[in-house]
């Protein structure tokens, strides 16, 4: 079967949706995202990216690939390599066998990426589905691009073997078992409950709703401690994680709302549709937060971190109420 590329908002859920579709199970990107309980929030001050704390709106990399195995009866095989040449050979073997292969890469080394977006971010997922015999270039399906792209072998090898935080070590993954249509009435409530547990009951105060409040406190504290340029870098980083890093807008809240709508239909539970509406509103709040942060960065508005912190606290309250309702509905 010829491989079909489709445009997605997030790399990992997009790759998994494409692999599943290729193996005969059409699953949308939001379904792949929701079923693996990938939405979350984490503010991790001890992990620094360019000297700024890590803020994430989703579960760690590979959570979606691994999280879909159980509900879909799917088996994914993961391979990493110590030797880059061995990694490239193995990729060629798999492609020759007609496999579509997921890969973890660093965006910095992917030549088709726009220059301004090429940061040293090591957990970008792309799919290889062929190799052009005449030029030797790989045919890649990068879910966040509108069309398939091609990539020279040397560049791809560098991207797969980049070093640093979350180093990919040449990671390849592909499906070995055949996925089957799950019993939606069993798997969806389970996935919903898992997400509410992460958002409401995480034992660490930096995960979930409590993490949003913790971030609000940190943002508020910027006013007293650091110089304005530093404070702007901090809030800029939060907005980048929320909007730029392939989230479908509003830090994955819109894509999850889309999953809730699909779930409402599959389970014939209109209450999930109402929850989706609420979550879209919360996503809009996140977008408003991003907008005022950006205006402050550009000095169109006076830098007032307490104001941003209040917005974050409002969002935290709304998310807390939302996830309690979701728990009841699940």
């Amino acid at each position, binding site marked *: 079967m010829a491989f079909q590329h489709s445009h997605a908002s997030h790399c990992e859920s997009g790759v998994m949706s494409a692999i599943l579709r290729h193996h005969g199970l059409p699953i949308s990107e939001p379904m792949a995202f929701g079923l693996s309980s990938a939405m979350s929030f984490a503010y991790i001050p001890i992990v620094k990216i360019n000297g700024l704390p890590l803020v994430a709106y989703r579960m760690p990399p590979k959570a979606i690939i691994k999280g879909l195995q159980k509900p879909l009866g799917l088996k994914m095989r993961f391979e990493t390599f110590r030797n880059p040449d061995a990694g490239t050979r193995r990729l060629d073997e798999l492609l020759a066998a007609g496999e579509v292969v997921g890969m973890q890469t660093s965006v910095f080394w992917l030549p088709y990426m726009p220059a301004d977006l090429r940061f040293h971010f090591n957990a970008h997922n792309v799919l290889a589905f062929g190799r052009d015999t005449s030029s030797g270039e790989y045919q890649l399906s990068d879910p966040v691009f509108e069309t398939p792209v091609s990539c020279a072998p040397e560049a791809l090898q560098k991207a797969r073997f980049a070093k640093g935080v979350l180093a990919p070590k040449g990671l390849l993954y592909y499906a070995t078992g055949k996925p089957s249509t799950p019993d939606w009435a069993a798997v969806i409530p389970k996935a919903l409950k898992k997400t509410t547990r992460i958002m409401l009951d995480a034992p660490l105060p930096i995960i979930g709703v409590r993490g949003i409040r913790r971030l609000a406190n940190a943002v508020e504290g910027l006013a007293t401690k650091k110089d304005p340029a530093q404070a702007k870098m901090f809030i800029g980083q939060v907005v*980048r994680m929320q909007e730029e890093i392939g989230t479908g807008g509003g830090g994955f809240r819109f894509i999850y709302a889309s999953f809730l709508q699909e779930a409402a239909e599959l389970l014939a539970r209109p209450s999930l549709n109402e929850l989706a509406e609420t979550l879209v509103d919360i996503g809009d709040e996140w977008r408003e937060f991003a907008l005022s942060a950006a205006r402050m960065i550009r000095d169109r508005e006076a830098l007032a971190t307490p104001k941003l912190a209040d917005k974050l606290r409002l969002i935290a309250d709304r998310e807390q109420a939302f996830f309690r309702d979701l728990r009841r509905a699940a």
Partner: protein
Amino acid sequence: MLASDVPQEGNTTLGGHRKALYARGADGKLQIVQSAGWEVEEIVTRQAVDDLNRLAEEARLRVNSGLTSALEYHMHKARMDVPLLAQTTGLWQWRIRRHFRPAVFASLSTALRRRYADAMGLTVDQLNKAE
């Protein structure tokens, strides 16, 4: 967000690409809508890129006044920091910092220069000059 509200302002950092967002269509269902870019994203991406460029530019000035080696300039140019360059080359961080001294850098072997150049995707000739 309504499909009609999806920003189409353009974003130079996307290099002409469009990204997929989820927004509500006329029937209330969320669907993928292609966005040509949102100014907010452009502002925060520019901010990050400008900061990296500033580091590289400052290093270049210091190279010209003999205060650091071309290695530091290229490290910033490649958007790396010392820990990442250390992991990529397999050298100790203190050794890399020592190579920021112009006199030490000038005495490096070609093999070591090649190691740095490969790590940053450069040729040895490019590595030797801060331009």
